[in-house]
């Protein structure tokens, strides 16, 4: 059993008792060791946060602390370390539940990431509830991970995808959305914030519209959680998925939130240890939530790292960080508009710090390579969103994606790199 001291260290912090000091980018940058690095002899300018975010020292230390002092398997030992590891693992689940304001920690399923979360829903809820002739509504701006699992399910079942179109600013056409519902609509699955365009979709309103038709909603929150607070009880969606690594936690850990009513009714995803109550060869009873969906040894270290990332976000005035980011985005928009022949994709009224663009007829890969030589890390390619590329009739785009640790100097380095690109390509 754990000592009183261990239990103390496992208590989640109480944000209310220790209000975070106002957001200060210099102090926050010092929390991320990698940001001090040089690339190609220049200070690293990391603008690929949409792909994955960097990790604060607190997260790195939590992993090291777990493996140094706490490592054991969870939910299966009577020994001291096993109890410590189990407590830490379940404490992480509670931190997630509080962070996203879920009604209960039974609604938090640990998965590998957004992709696995969506596949879980498709393989359990989807395979049971969706049949021939049924329809699933998604949108034109989905990441491939919110297209392919549904496409595969539709192929298997003879069901159909209905797609909400978007306008050229990168906003969903809400009027069309309303008309896509039919008596066969079984699910709406939409992206909260676009990884290419930065558009913040009106998901709360979209959930209400779906509910008016009696249809449950899944929201892909991979790009939302790193930028703003999300609130499950306010949103009222059936499912919400996100990845730890995009919110400053390790790779290989993510969350499927499911409202208890839905999760309870769903069959398990994978079979194995931990997800059962009783096994004999004639009869098997499944475990309760959340265990029913967590077969096998989970990513214990990853979930503890995710808990540490949440503690970190609670400690830095996350709302202040979001305001700082919005201000930085405005600055970035202004200076990028000053680069000749640069066309921004995604100019939605309501957006976060994602800046995808094309520069004259220069291929994004060439842009990315030249920026890299200036120490500026961006993403070049189709961003796992080929339908968005098709909308703008381009094969690829360059994307700079911001986090609260970026600065105006980072944006200036990007712009100066873009001028070099133009010079090389004359």
């Amino acid at each position: 059993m754990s000592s009183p001291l261990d239990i103390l260290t496992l208590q989640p912090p109480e944000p209310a008792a220790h209000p975070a000091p106002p957001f200060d980018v210099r102090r926050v940058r010092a929390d991320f060791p990698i940001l001090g690095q040089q690339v190609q002899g220049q200070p690293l300018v990391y603008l690929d946060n949409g792909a994955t975010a960097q990790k604060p020292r607190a997260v790195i230390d939590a992993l090291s602390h777990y493996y140094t002092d706490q490592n054991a398997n969870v939910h299966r030992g009577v020994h001291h370390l096993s109890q410590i590891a189990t407590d830490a693992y379940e404490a992480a689940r509670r931190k997630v539940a509080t962070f996203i304001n879920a009604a209960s920690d039974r609604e938090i399923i640990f998965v590998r990431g957004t992709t696995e979360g969506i596949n879980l829903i498709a393989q359990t809820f989807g395979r049971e509830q969706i049949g021939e002739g049924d329809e699933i509504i998604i949108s034109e701006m989905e990441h491939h991970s919110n297209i392919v699992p549904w496409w595969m399910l539709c192929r298997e079942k003879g069901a159909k995808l209905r797609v909400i179109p978007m306008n050229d600013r990168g906003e969903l056409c809400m009027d069309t959305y309303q008309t896509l519902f039919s008596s066969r609509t079984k699910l709406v699955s939409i992206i909260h914030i676009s990884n290419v365009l930065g558009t913040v979709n009106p998901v709360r309103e979209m959930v209400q519209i779906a509910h008016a038709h009696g249809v449950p909603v899944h929201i892909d929150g991979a790009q939302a959680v790193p930028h703003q607070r999300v609130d499950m009880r306010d949103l009222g969606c059936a499912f919400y998925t996100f990845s730890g690594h995009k919110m400053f936690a390790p790779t290989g850990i993510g969350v499927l939130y499911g409202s208890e009513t839905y999760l309870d009714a769903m069959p398990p995803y994978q079979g194995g240890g931990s997800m059962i109550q009783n096994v004999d060869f004639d009869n098997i009873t499944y475990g309760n939530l959340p265990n029913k969906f967590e077969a096998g040894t989970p990513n214990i270290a990853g979930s503890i790292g995710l808990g540490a990332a949440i503690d970190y976000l609670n400690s830095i005035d996350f709302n202040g960080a979001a305001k700082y980011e919005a201000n930085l985005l405005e600055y970035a928009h202004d200076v990028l508009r000053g680069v000749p022949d640069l066309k921004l994709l995604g100019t939605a009224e309501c957006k976060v710090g994602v800046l995808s663009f094309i520069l004259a007829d220069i291929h994004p890969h060439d842009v990315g390579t030249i920026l890299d030589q200036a120490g500026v890390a961006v993403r070049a390619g189709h961003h796992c969103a080929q339908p968005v590329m098709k909308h703008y009739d381009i094969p690829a785009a360059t994307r700079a994606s911001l986090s609260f640790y970026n600065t105006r100097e980072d944006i200036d380095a990007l712009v100066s790199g873009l001028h070099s690109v133009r010079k090389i390509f004359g």
Partner: protein
Amino acid sequence: MSDLRELYQQLILDHNKNPRNFRVLDPADRFAEGYNPLCGDKVEVYLQLHGDRIKDIGFQGSGCAISKASASLMTETIKGKTLGESETFFKDFQAMLTDPSSNLGLDQMGKLFAFAGVRDYPTRIKCATLSWHALRAAIENVQTPITTER
């Protein structure tokens, strides 16, 4: 940025802007498509043969400067060569980009030596070799599009 000047040297920028043999051959004796799913680069290679000699070659496609210039210079290099000679160029080109012990120089490689600098940009090697893989697929008459990823 001196090394960037080597990667994006004048010859490459010129072939990117004005690719040679950038056309469909109709009829073509051989045809193949190459695709790099990581970046979306696409190339189509068309061949007209006379015996085992490449009488004419054309290409189409879209991609970055490296891939387009590479395809263009490839067509210039192998037009009029035998299939055996083009295979030797393929192997030498591949070695120049990926084999650290390779000492193939301007003498053996001619204009293709312009791509030697790509060796220092591992993420871009596939851009330079895509059209060569498509050429080989065309020679071998591979019907399905070949990709740089397995």
